């Protein structure tokens, strides 16, 4: 115990604070890049992993999807969207089958002139036989507020890493632990 205290004193408080700062900065910049991406794309979660095979042969399980959610563009039939039903845990990626525009009724404010916020959507997975009505948990259609984003691009296979880390949490902790150790013992 005395030996460790002596080593600590020799190192100095500043040195320890600097080392911890290195580690904390890595995490902070990762968080900020994620949040920045979210703000830029106007999407809650701009990068998602495909978990089911309901969009085959377009997307397979383990693909990574890149999303944006342009607030002033209408979603059209044929767009591939990721949406989240309130009450359901995981978002679903399916294709828009039908869109309906509802005109705003009796609204005193004239802010939302476009019909975009008032779109109603029906979706269906390419690989499914029926549309998603069953998945909507009571709703008859999706509204824009349920949509996480529209798929702009994808990367095949890379998402398996995330799937593996979710299925085996030890992997996640092992990875984080290794990164943390590397950051702490390395010098600037």
């Amino acid at each position: 115990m005395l030996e460790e205290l002596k080593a600590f004193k020799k190192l100095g408080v500043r040195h320890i604070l600097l080392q911890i700062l290195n580690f904390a900065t890595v995490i902070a910049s990762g968080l900020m890049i994620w949040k920045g991406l979210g703000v830029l794309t106007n999407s809650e979660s701009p990068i998602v992993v495909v978990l089911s095979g309901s969009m085959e042969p377009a997307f397979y399980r383990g693909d990574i999807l890149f999303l944006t959610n342009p607030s002033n563009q209408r979603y059209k039939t044929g767009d591939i969207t990721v949406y989240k039903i309130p009450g359901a845990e995981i978002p679903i990626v399916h294709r828009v089958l039908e869109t309906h525009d509802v005109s705003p009724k009796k609204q005193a404010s004239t802010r939302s002139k476009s019909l975009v916020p008032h779109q109603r959507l029906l979706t269906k997975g390419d690989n499914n036989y029926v549309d998603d009505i069953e998945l909507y948990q009571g709703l008859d259609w999706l509204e824009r507020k349920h949509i996480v984003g529209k798929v702009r691009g994808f990367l095949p296979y890379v998402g398996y890493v995330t799937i593996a880390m979710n299925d085996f949490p030890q992997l996640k902790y092992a990875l984080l632990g290794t990164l943390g150790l590397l950051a702490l013992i390395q010098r600037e």
Partner: protein
Amino acid sequence: MARPRNTQQINGTQSSLAKGRATRTPSPETERPTGPLSIVVPISERDTVKVNHYNSTELKNACDDAVKRYLSRPELFKQIHLHTDVRLALGWLSVFVAAGTALYGYKIEFEKSKTVVSIGLVVYILLTTLQTLYSYFVESHTIFEGKRKSLSKRIITERIHIDSTTIPVSKSPLTTSVSPSNSPSYLLTVSYVRSTNGGKSLLAKGRAKAAQTYSAFFDETGTMDQEVFERWVGELVESSMDGKLA
């Protein structure tokens, strides 16, 4: 443990050396305060320094640490931690801003949280830019800044500032082998000011610069010969304390 000084390497005046430190009785202004060479480090207090001698960053860091240890011993300079403190302050502030922003974005629903998260992002980017600019322009190559106050009739304040850089090996097709003669060099720049009267009367000002190959300080296993290094640094610092403007 007193080491005989190699007087040919010091370009100071012979008379000041001949006086010796223990028997000096000149007036306070001409007396040079204790230099680092006169304070000896007992062997028992030394830890071995061993680095990967193929990595010039590690070599530089080891030398920088040795300079800091050497000059901040008791009776010598007290390190000014301003640059470290600014880096710590800006760094930790940006970490807290990032954490706060992320937490807010996590707790509050996305659409409502967008404005606050954007503000947090801008503040974070600002702080990170400030940090980078500070370390590039203000701190640049500084490795040590020290201060010492001594009292001999008047309060004498000394300030020393040390920069260090690595000079890489000049590339030529004939010298592609790695050997001690082909090693990168360590360049130290020392600037020194001695003043009194609260900084208003200047007593001495000196600047010294010297480069030495890393192979002079590190052997084939990467162990640092601290005594050789410290002697080199000590001579450089004392030559700047003598008021030379190299």
